[in-house]
């Protein structure tokens, strides 16, 4: 969506392609990223900062796990569900991952329809994304409940290293909070699209800035990021 002219930010002017184009952009005045609005640039930088937070959490978890002297609980047993008369390892997590990845698909479609100014489809897809996100958080709540009833606590658990519960609740909790806030903002953006606020350029309640359809894409950047982080949490926490 580099060619958008929303938000009053003009399309990028003609310039050399490839590496020369990059050099020309950075040597130019006014803007270094010629196709990014302020909002989009801010979201990218915020996500970079947030990446460092999640990286630190995951590195702390890896340190705890690889330096512990007591056994680490076996993920495929701990996270198994007893269904249809058998213990199926990781089944809940598999479904959760599927749900969240699907929500990225609906989000991407919502962005596409937003730039076509197709209000109905955009709202429907945003609501679908929010619903999938809420489902994910709901299943996470179920998972937490199950583990808590089995005796997992931040300070200990029946199977081994106490850091298992501590890192699990901290990291999935921090990610779940990100998803929850995402759902909240998805609903807000969906409401704004539905009421036509982006068509009219209504001013935000707090910022008094005119809104436009680009907010859907900025929202999408955040949502895809939260998704991507989950892939790493899934790989390092559940599959290791």
């Amino acid at each position: 969506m580099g060619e958008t002219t929303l938000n009053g930010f003009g399309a990028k002017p003609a310039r050399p392609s490839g590496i020369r184009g990059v050099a020309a952009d950075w040597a130019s005045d006014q803007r270094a990223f010629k196709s990014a609005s302020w909002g989009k640039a801010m979201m990218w930088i915020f996500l970079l900062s947030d990446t460092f937070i999640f990286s630190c959490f995951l590195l702390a978890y890896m340190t705890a796990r690889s330096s512990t002297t007591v056994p680490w609980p076996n993920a495929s047993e701990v996270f198994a569900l007893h269904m249809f008369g058998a213990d199926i390892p990781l089944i809940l997590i598999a479904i959760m991952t599927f749900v969240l990845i699907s929500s990225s698909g609906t989000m991407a479609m919502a962005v596409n329809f937003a730039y076509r100014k197709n209000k109905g489809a955009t709202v429907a897809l945003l609501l679908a994304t929010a619903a999938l996100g809420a489902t994910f958080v709901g299943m996470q709540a179920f998972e937490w409940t199950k583990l808590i009833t089995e005796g997992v606590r931040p300070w200990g658990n029946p199977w081994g290293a106490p850091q298992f519960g501590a890192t699990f609740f901290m990291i999935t909790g921090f990610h779940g909070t990100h998803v929850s806030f995402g759902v909240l903002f998805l609903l807000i953006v969906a409401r704004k699209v539905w009421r036509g606020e982006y068509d009219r350029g209504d001013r935000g309640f707090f910022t008094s800035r005119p809104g436009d359809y680009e907010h859907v894409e900025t929202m999408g950047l955040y949502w895809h990021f939260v998704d991507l982080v989950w892939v790493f949490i899934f790989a390092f926490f559940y599959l290791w």
Partner: protein
Amino acid sequence: MVDATPRMERDIPPAEVPELELYHPKSWWTTYVFSQDAKVIAIQYSGTAVAIGLVALVLSWLMRLQLGFPGTFSFITPEAYYQFITMHGMIMVIYLLTALFLGGFGNYLIPLMVGARDMVFPYVNMLSFWIYLLAVLVLAASFFAPGGPTGAGWTLYPPQAILGGTPGGQSWGIILMLVSLILFIIGFTMGGLNYAVTVIQGRTRGMTLMRMPLTVWGIFTATVMALLAFPALFVACVMMLFDRVLGTSFFMPALVEMGEQLSYGGGSPILFQHLFWFFGHPEVYIVALPAFGIVSDLISTHARKNIFGYRMMVWAIVIIGALSFIVWAHHMYVSGMHPWFGFFFATTTLIIAVPTAIKVYNWVLTLWRGDIHLTVPMLFALAFIVTFVNGGLTGLFLGNVVVDVPLSDTMFVVAHFHMVMGVAPIMVIFGAIYHWYPKITGRMLEDWMGKFHFWVTFVGAYAIFFPMHYVGLVGVPRRYPEMGEAAFMTAPVDNLNAFISVAALVVGFAQMVFLFNLVWSLRFGKEAGPNPWRATSLEWQTPTTPPPHGNWGDERPVVYRWAYDYSVPGAPEDFIPQNDPWPDKPATRAA
């Protein structure tokens, strides 16, 4: 067809981005309190930072009273001494220096220097300040909480930070400290995103990155570093908070306290040190880089000469910023990590000396054969160079493992980092305030008070910290409220300690002259006019002084040149403002 527009006007691309629509305040509250104007936010940030900084100054007096005259003041117990140390360090490093450089100078100077009307997200910028204020209030609240503030040392090392033997460890102190830090980081992130995006995406026509004043480069690079380094502190704070409140064992190994086995087990205290210093070392440069940038502009302006090696200066800032992320474990040589790590981190640490030395040489070469005006800002800038070189050289000592091991945890380390990270940036802050106060208020600071303030502060700082190196070399450990059984070595040390304490009190009181000057000159200072230093950068070319909301009146300035056109041969004056198209429209601007 003859194109009548001047050549340079033609060469500058048209505006790509429409004007920032400003929020126009409707009442006194939204103009001066809940203001979205970066300049007001800057003054709010600075005022808050200085206010809490004064608390830290008083704490340093109390510490010096104890060290200089041990046993004389019965209210300074060892517990209280540790609380003073902790709060002094944390307030000075984070709530004063970081907030003042980025929140204060960043907010005031970035939009003006790049020719923007305001920060790109004024509302978020306002939130940044209010969350910072909340963080300061939470921190200050710990002085009144039961058990008092935390006495864990400013590095908050676990396990002692959250154990009962440390002041505040099992009461409110440590909790309030961690919550305050978390709030600070959230607030800073909101401001930091603004500073970064304003520099990358919000410049005026003609303002390329390589035409920006070095002040902007320093603050911008420091902001990006802070956005990447503070996450590590955030994570460390969250985890320690869980250790303290929920009973997790991230940082807590199995422990016996007072003969009783605690419920902790299996955590890694070293992990905290890694997270803390992954933040902590970049933090040194988060404070230093804005100082580097500002001092470059002060020297160039007050020596009437272009900065020597501008490109090198920019790249040195960027390279120092990048390298500072891979040196953190030089704070941990004695923590018991693998010796090979020490080798690696010592090497990277010493490599940082190269770009830093480039900067120092360039400052000196800028001064060389310059028309040096010994104004108060220039005096402070020169003091910075001297102090920074001194502090930097002892840094080379401490960066080497074999030298660091015996010196670690002595007063030598205290002297080193106060020289390089305390005195040097503070010198720049003073110089910058004397330099930009006329733009902020329209009046000059009183000169004789400024000179008095400078000489007492400069000589006094050396009187404090030079002897402290010797005290450390003799072997006096840091963090000890008194020498106790080790008193055998203290005949010369006692005298020196008393001397240092008296000097510290004198320097402290000299700051009161400075504060008085700030208030007095607001009313009685000499009228400054728009550009008293005859400087080139854009903030001096605003239509009115102080700059109005929106900074530029009807039209944003167009930039034709870099910020360092001083004493250009053939030019009608010895400076050419950045928005002056000379020689196309030979304009001597007396605006």
